[in-house]
């Protein structure tokens, strides 16, 4: 037992130091591409940290987003940026702006912030149940047996509804900014084609599995949606282009399915139960699964569309 605790501490200590060190190198690396790769490595380490903190749900989300989407987004943006600006430009500009005496002041402020926050953390009571008692007490009536899913879809359903809207607004922002999405010229080649053909169906199956398992174990709409989004990104990278007809209202329908399902459900429950999103315990499990399915589709399609960038145009809009 002794050796076990010691090893646990070693792991946590190394992981903590590693997180800080990688973050520092990512923030200060003179080479932008290197900073991005270090940031991807940082995401990997974060997923391990979630595991150690007994937060497998968060680890799932981080694994899907950190390993799949953020890296792809950053790399694609970096490539577009290098084609717009001269690549050497950034290095001189960055160092010329700030004088060294200013750097000391900024470092001092950051240190002060760290010391202040550290003091607050250390003075917190070592035991605090938070809302875990309330969650455990009401889990019976929530329709699911996994606390995190119960919080997301039932107890704090409003939050999740608004988060779905935030995702949609972010996409609308991207669409209102960019022109049509541009693809890379070179052909994907047989190997990438094969990878996409094998991995995409598997990703979709895993998304469905996570959605289903979320009722009683780590998983759920957000993780499943992120996996679905990664499948979309892989398809886009393999130069898969959906038929133009799909890019009109079918795409829009999938994008709003999640928020719309929430709003319709809230209105119906208001009429039946007298309160917005108040699930009757007997049907709660079923209703939550329906909501989650719609949310998964919306999150996945939104994330893939965010990667695509510009607003996809259907045939009608061209003419």
């Amino acid at each position, binding site marked *: 037992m002794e050796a076990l605790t010691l*090893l646990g501490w070693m792991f946590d200590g190394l*992981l903590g130091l590693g997180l800080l060190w990688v973050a520092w190198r990512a923030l200060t690396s003179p080479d932008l*591409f290197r900073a991005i*790769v270090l940031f991807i490595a940082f995401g990997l380490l974060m997923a391990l940290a979630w595991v150690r903190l007994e937060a*497998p749900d968060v680890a799932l989300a981080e*694994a899907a987003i950190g390993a*799949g989407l953020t890296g792809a987004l950053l790399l694609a943006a970096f*490539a577009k940026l290098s084609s717009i600006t001269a690549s050497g430009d950034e290095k001189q500009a960055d160092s010329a702006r700030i004088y060294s005496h200013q750097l000391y002041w900024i470092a001092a402020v950051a240190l002060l912030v760290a010391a202040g926050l550290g003091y607050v953390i250390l003075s917190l009571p070592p035991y605090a149940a938070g809302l875990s008692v309330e969650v455990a007490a009401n889990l019976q009536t929530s329709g699911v047996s996994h606390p995190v899913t119960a919080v997301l879809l039932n107890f704090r359903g409003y939050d999740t509804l608004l988060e779905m809207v935030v995702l949609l607004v972010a996409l609308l922002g991207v669409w209102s900014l960019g022109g049509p999405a541009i693809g890379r010229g070179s052909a994907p080649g047989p190997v990438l084609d094969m990878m996409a053909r094998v991995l995409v169906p598997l990703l979709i199956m895993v998304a469905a599995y996570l959605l289903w398992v979320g009722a009683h174990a780590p998983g759920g709409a957000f993780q499943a949606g992120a996996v679905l989004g*990664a499948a979309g990104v892989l398809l886009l*990278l393999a130069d898969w282009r959906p038929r133009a007809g799909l890019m009109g209202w079918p795409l829009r329908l999938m994008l709003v399915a999640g928020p719309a399902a929430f709003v319709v459900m809230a209105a119906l429950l208001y009429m039946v139960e007298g309160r917005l999103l108040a699930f009757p315990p007997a049907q709660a499990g079923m209703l939550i699964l329906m909501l989650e399915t719609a949310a998964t589709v919306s999150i996945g399609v939104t994330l893939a569309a965010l990667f695509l960038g510009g607003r996809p145009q259907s045939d009608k809009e061209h003419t």
Partner: protein
Amino acid sequence: MQTLYLALAVFLLLNLGAGMWRVLRGPSAADRMLAAQLFGTTAVAVLVLLGQAMESTALLDVALLFALLAAVTAVAFVRRAWPETNNDVD
């Protein structure tokens, strides 16, 4: 057995730290990406070990996601971010 799992996890974490040198050093973009790829596999190994040590099957799902998605970043690199001309000093 628990001790062995955790000891190997610590060992793999140290390995990961050593691999970081290749990310910092380069020289080419592909080298940095390769190191990131090794990190992905190492993280999968750490997760399956921790899953066994902490007796949590949910961690296997996390490892499964890593295994599935490790390719996405690398493919994004090859398809988008890798400059067509070779500017890297070797």
